């Protein structure tokens, strides 16, 4: 495994550069810099850390398994490392740079106080298996966050350990499965409406259920009659997303829950969109039995380029006994108690087990609690109100130039949905989105939900000012006009990004997933 044997660098001028006005020898363009891979600039002798010289006659108890060949890991000095990653960072769009209108993914401001708190040594530098007497404050963070989540959702309990939204979905479905098995009534089918998240059917199938779809009505909501017709003794439950992926509140949610319960099933709600209703509607009042909460969407923990997430699951009284280990309880004297295998015993016999090695995403809990305390009950209610206000403002500012399939179905919640109806032939939602990149915005969620052709799902979030929204609306109106007029230059957008359109088909057809020496 070689490092940097050939001296090859990217930035070697490529043929297409000849077509660019004012080509440069390096391939760099002033502040837009090309950055090689660490394997092309590092060496196996370089290191950016100082460590003591190992003792030449140190004992060796590695047995016969001591490493005999180098790892092939390149090293860089500290300044080279800082420069490498700083240069890479400049090729990323981020919420710190501008509006991120990703429907359902919810990219809102990430307060830096959250980061400061998460790095306090009492949170960042404690081990998950320290004696519980030495981590009472950490357990209290979990307990306080749990208290808020339970109060805001009107539920009975919360499982904190799931590590991401999809992991939370799995946790909720396993609680349902454990509850049904405990009552001697294992069932085989989970119903998933079309307007639910794509991860929902995957989760139900992974937990061993057959998945059946339920259509949406012409309004973009669950077809209530179709759902009721399908309920029966084989249906374990329904997985529903509310507000749904069309950005609409499921008006019949309580009726749906009652019907599912009457048929002996349980109701899972995908809580990815809870940020739209927090402080205004309590899912417990809607009859929901389990719902995960993506802390990054609703409570502003950073997305980090794709994780880590965190997906606590709130549970109804019926499901609370089945929550996974470990969890935190509070004694009468105020001391915090950690329930795990060692002491679950007879008091919590129904817990379905463990989903992850330790207690979940503590670093996300401190951030989420910090955000929640900063907002308070009044601020959280205002945040959901402003999120919905912003989405409706975008919807009404664009529905004369873009197709809004459910625009007449009442106010949208936190996200506005548009389709590609009205675009000139040959121009797609993809072209439109890439055009938005040139305007300085991250594209919206594309081709989702599936019920709308060429869907564009726009979620501005509550942290965008009216000025930022007006600029976004202006860009969207300009693009809508170009898409309607058949502007061919959209097909090759983006023109001003660090890279032009990337060949994703090539990447999948001939996967190159690790670096190797060219020709090596």
């Amino acid at each position, binding site marked *: 495994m070689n490092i940097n044997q050939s001296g090859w660098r990217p930035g070697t001028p490529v043929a297409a550069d000849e077509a660019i006005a004012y080509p440069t020898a390096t391939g760099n363009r002033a502040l837009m810099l090309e950055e090689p891979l660490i394997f092309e600039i*590092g060496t196996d*002798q*370089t*290191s*950016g850390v100082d460590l*003591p010289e*190992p003792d030449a006659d140190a004992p060796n*108890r*590695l*047995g016969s*398994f*001591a*490493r005999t060949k180098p*790892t092939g890991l390149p090293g860089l000095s*500290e300044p080279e490392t*800082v420069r490498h990653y700083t240069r890479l960072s400049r090729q*990323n*769009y*981020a919420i*710190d740079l501008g509006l991120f209108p990703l429907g359902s993914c919810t990219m809102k401001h990430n307060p830096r106080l959250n980061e400061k*708190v998460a790095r306090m*040594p*009492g949170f*960042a530098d404690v*081990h*998950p*298996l320290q004696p519980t007497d*030495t981590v009472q404050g950490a357990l209290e963070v979990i307990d306080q966050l749990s208290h808020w989540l339970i109060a805001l959702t009107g539920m009975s309990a919360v499982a904190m350990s799931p590590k991401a939204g*999809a*992991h939370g979905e799995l946790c909720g479905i396993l609680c349902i499965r454990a509850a049904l098995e405990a009552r001697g009534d294992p069932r085989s089918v989970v119903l998933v409406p079309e307007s639910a998240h794509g991860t929902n059917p995957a989760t139900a199938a*992974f937990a061993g259920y057959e998945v059946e779809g339920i259509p949406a009505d012409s309004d973009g909501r669950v077809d209530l009659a179709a759902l009721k017709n399908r309920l029966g003794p084989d249906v374990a439950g329904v997985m529903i997303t509310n507000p749904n992926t069309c950005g609409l509140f499921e008006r019949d949610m309580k009726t749906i829950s009652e019907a599912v319960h009457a048929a002996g099933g349980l109701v899972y709600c995908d809580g990815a969109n809870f940020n739209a209703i927090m402080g*205004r*509607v*309590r899912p417990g009042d809607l009859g929901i039995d389990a719902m995960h909460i993506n802390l990054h969407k609703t409570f502003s923990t950073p997305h*980090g*380029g794709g994780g*880590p997430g*965190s997906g606590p699951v709130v549970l109804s009284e019926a499901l609370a006994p089945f929550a996974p280990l470990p969890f935190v309880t509070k004694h009468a004297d105020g001391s915090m108690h950690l329930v795990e295998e060692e002491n679950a015993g007879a008091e919590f016999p129904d817990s*379905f087990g463990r989903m992850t*090695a*330790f*207690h979940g995403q*503590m*670093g*996300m809990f401190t951030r989420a609690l910090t955000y929640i305390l900063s907002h308070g009950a*009044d601020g959280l*209610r205002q*945040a959901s*109100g402003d999120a919905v206000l912003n989405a409706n403002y975008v919807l009404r500012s664009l529905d004369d130039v873009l197709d809004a399939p459910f625009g007449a179905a*009442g*106010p949208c919640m936190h996200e506005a949905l548009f389709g590609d109806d009205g675009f000139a032939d040959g121009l797609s939602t993809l072209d439109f989105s890439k055009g938005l*990149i040139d305007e300085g915005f991250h594209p919206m969620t594309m081709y989702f939900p599936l019920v709308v052709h060429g869907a564009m799902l726009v979620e501005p979030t509550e942290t965008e*000012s009216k000025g930022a929204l007006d600029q976004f609306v202006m860009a969207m109106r300009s693009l809508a006009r170009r898409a309607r007029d058949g502007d061919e230059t959209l097909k*090759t957008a983006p023109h001003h990004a*660090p*890279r032009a359109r*990337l060949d*994703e088909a*090539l*990447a999948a057809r001939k996967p190159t997933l690790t670096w190797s020496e060219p020709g090596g």
Partner: protein
Amino acid sequence: MRYLPHTDIDRAAMLDTIGADSVDALFSDVPSDLYLDGPVEGLPLHASEMAVERHMRRLSKKNLAAADTPFFLGAGAYRHHVPATVDHIIQRGEFLTAYTPYQPEIAQGTLQMLFEFQTQVARLYGCAIANASMYDGSTACWEAMVMAERITKRTRVVCAAGLHPHYVSVATTLARFTRASVDTAVPVLEAGAGEDAIIDRIDEETSCVVVQYPDILGRIPDLQRIADAAHDKGALLIAVNTEPVALGALEAPGDLGADIVVGEGQAIGVGLQFGGPYLGLFAIANPRHVRQMPGRLCGETIDADGKRGFVLTLSTREQHIRREKATSNICTNSGLCALAFSVHMTLLGDAGLSRLAAVNHALACKAADRLGRVPGLKVLNDTFFNEFTVTFDRDARQLVRDLADKGILAGISLGRLFPDEASLSGGLLVTVTETSTEEDIEALANALQEALS
């Protein structure tokens, strides 16, 4: 409320555009009897930055931080020095506040980093391909078992006795709801890792054998021998590593015959964080298995101008696309933790990682020798990397609590890890890293001597 930009004048103007009377009117689809007309009762109202920071600091102070005490805990979560550069880089807003890189033209920073990360992990593990990370080591381990089931069309998993009990617990929990059976064993307090006992349990129904390297008692099993035995029966070997620093000193599992190597990457760059977020690592030896692999993958390609670039690829395996036919529960990765790992690994390089491993091992050997001189205490392991097990005739759980009262975090009692196994209650897992000082080791030895006398 400092995070909300609108003034009431803005709100009025926007409501006017929408044609609504009030923000509440936008919630008209919520049945009125379910709509709250004010903030949820019983919860406090918003607080200033200063007040929140004070509250959180007070909670933080109730915890004993590892840096403030002689500290010897490990078992899948390790305390190592993290260079200041790592935290600086992950706090850059362009990394911290970016989204999943589905729009590659404006996400090359994250994508190139992931491509580099994948290559680093593959090389560390001695494998052909690594993915862009998993939730943590325990979920990566379970997903590897599910992957082995898909490849071998068999459902019986054999776990070595030295596999982390929490990893076993995650697997048995999830197996209960799927088709697999998980054959587990409990470690016995013997110096060797008991390869014969594992090999005896492999049969024609076995999809995979799961072996931790080094194992939960700190012992270093003979992976090559177990790999040969597994392959003889048509089973795969899954090697699990919870301490990546060890691989600076030990042969890579992929080079010893492991088909899938998974592990916890927390030790490099991430920090303890009371258990999460952590970093699942996942790699495969055989590139032909790539379409059975869970998790995100970043691949190299070119753009329309012929320039090298990177994209997420082979995503047709993923949940949001395959829906009920998806092969894993993974819908994200641990991108920011992967960045921390990658930055720290880049600072180390081969030279730094080897040296870090040597420092860890040398200090751990010193500690084992020193503790071995404490009357009534026996060091179990003859081989280990930076953690080892000591035994004595007392319940280690109480001993750990007693020493914590004296300000020494002595290690992890095997009784806490294996509460149902009385035979292990006199065992203590002791972990030593480069952050331990000789004074800390001396303090631990003296405290143990006093407690045991």
